[in-house]
């Protein structure tokens, strides 16, 4: 199988590490070669963060380069727009419509662009934009945005619902399991 590439992008502290952990667990049980790459340290302090998940028969590079991503899963609208060049010609962006102002916008040195989702669609990009934050809150916690997004991503793969839920069980503490399962299903059905 040709290597599949998923980028998870967002703002430091939004929980992208759990999303990649979940994907890693799922793909390992399926017997794929996998590489999951993330950057720790300074970028976690509210900066732009990116995690690369690659799987297939044999994966060499740990990172995804421009023009290679099959999916970009974005926790935030501006971050989706930042990484569009990384998408394959037939790739897809799955984006939470939440907006988080970066510091240059907060201090008035820059503006948060308007209508980004529509602008991406107008540029010919396959964009699946939805409000993951509201669904996460509906599941019981705004922090579950990561699992809502994974639920929505899951629609694009032929892994069974059971396989996904089993990977969630292995990735989250027992006391948050029900919440995360609910969040996953809300995302999957959105």
């Amino acid at each position: 199988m040709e290597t599949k590439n998923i980028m998870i992008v967002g703002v430091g502290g939004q929980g992208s590490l759990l999303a990649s952990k979940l994907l890693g667990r799922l793909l390992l049980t399926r017997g794929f070669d996998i590489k999951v790459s993330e950057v720790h340290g300074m970028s976690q302090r509210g900066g732009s963060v990116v995690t690369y998940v690659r799987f297939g028969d044999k994966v060499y590079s740990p990172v995804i380069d421009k023009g290679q991503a099959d999916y970009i899963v974005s926790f935030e609208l501006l971050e989706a727009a930042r990484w569009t060049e990384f998408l394959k010609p037939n790739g897809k962006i799955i984006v939470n419509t939440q907006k988080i102002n970066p510091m240059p916008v907060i201090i008035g040195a820059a503006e948060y662009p308007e209508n980004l989702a529509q602008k991406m669609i107008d540029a010919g990009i396959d964009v699946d934009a939805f409000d993951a934050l509201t669904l996460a809150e509906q599941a019981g916690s705004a922090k579950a945005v990561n699992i809502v997004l994974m639920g929505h991503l899951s629609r694009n793969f032929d892994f069974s619902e059971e396989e996904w839920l089993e990977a969630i069980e292995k990735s989250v503490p027992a006391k948050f399991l029900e919440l995360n399962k609910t969040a996953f299903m809300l995302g999957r059905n959105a």
Partner: protein
Amino acid sequence: MKQLMLGNEAVARGLYEAGCSFVSSYPGTPSTEITEAIAKYPEVYAEWAPNEKVAMEAAFGASLAGRRSFCGMKHVGLNVAADPLFTISYTGVNAGMVIGVADDAGMHSSQNEQDSRHYAESAKIPMLEPSDSAEALELTKLAYELSEKFDTPFLVKMCTRVSHSQSIVELGERKEVVGEYKKDIAKYVMMPGNAKKRHPVVEARTRALVEYAETAPINRVEAGSDNSMGIITSSTSYQYVKEVVGDTYPVMKLGMIWPLPEQKIKDFAASVQKLVIVEELDSFIESHCKNLGLECVGKEMFSCIDELSQNKVAAKLAAAPISGVKLEENIPPRPPVMCAGCPHRGLFYTLKKNKLTVLGDIGCYTLGAVAPLAAVDSVICMGASVSGIHGFCKSQQGAADNKTVAVIGDSTFMHSGITGLVNMAYNESNATVIIVDNSITGMTGHQQNPTTGFNLKGDPCAKIDLETLCRAVGIKRVQVVDPYNLAQCDAVIKEELAANEPSVIISRRPCALLKYVKHKAPLAVESEKCVGCKACMKIGCPAISIVDGKAKVDATQCVGCGVCEQLCKFGALKEV
């Protein structure tokens, strides 16, 4: 059993399986998780040392005593530990000793982009270089065998993309290794008479290692169908090369980066029409090839600046994929910022308000240099703020004393700020040092240090008292402030700058992200009182923004620190 593991966790697993029983490290991105992971194995003693030099010397002591040992650090940490490094090369080891060093090409979280491979050559210590997690585990184990066989410490060189990528590893069993201490003055006491005899031993060892490298399976040639070009590579560059060229061209993959297998490289060069070296950062393999009289290309194709990637390799050796659509839109950058409630914020606001020159240091508080605070004037390396302010103030003959401060974190102060403070006391500076004590090593992700009262394993332990320590080295003026209290900060800073002797201010408040820190309720804006003056925006808090001309607090981010409340002259910011 197969597992998905970070490169750093795989090094730790390698340490465990190799029977390593002593680990001493100082945290530094991207090396930190090696030591955090090994601390979870009860069979291994593991600790955070105050700095990398101490860590390396402690690991050497354990090796001398007959126990397999390890110390881990980032590339710039190896500079700090360079002193013991060059001499333990001469003494060699008793039990195996491995030094883990992680480079940060691309400077994701570092102040420079230096290439640690040069240390291997100049200290004459062999270096292994894994290219994924499975190799990180295997090469770490191999390093112990070779360390004992060739009587030398071994370097294992990681980089951000190997350290922080998870890939599949196969786990093995631990093998306990326990040696004995043997007194050997001629080998371990490096005074001139003995060291002169050891240097030839080191040179002979390197020749023996070259012999080993010639046939070692870790330096392998992968056949290709087209010998118009042959590629020599290692580490993550190997992964990029294979991704791009597959089995088209022959590839020599080096697992040992120093010393290099000279004959093997010559034979490989002879088997291909054109020799290409793909390596990140400096021309290391390439220079060696050229020294061997081989014609090759490397840095003409692949820059010594920044990381490589598959597209950068493809652009030169094949064809890079077509990039996706770039939006015709001004996408504002999202730089890292101090968190909401960060105790450093109130302090830097006060420094900026007083228009002080600030010599900064390495840690989260380096972010005090970012707009809108922009309060930091220089950042070089661990401890340089304290040593630097001494030179800055002394050279100005008093003119800078009342308007210059050094800012250094608790962990960084223990790492190498204390020696600078000794110099200030001894050589009678009149400068002011501010220790921003947030009770943790913050930037690297919350590691304990000698001032926190907890050790690496999380158990309570001895706690260094910063006030007593500063007084003991001869600083008579030591005051503690709460950085959430702007008026107190301002008054104490003015008072200490005016004093006619060196002083230390400890700005103390635990990191807002620490689990035990209880947060207050978020503040809210009474919009009829808010006049939109933006005074609250001067502190650069990510929880505050201006919406429709009025301040707005993001309740999901605000931790109720109250610093913004003190800036509002109209009483518009209030606890809910």
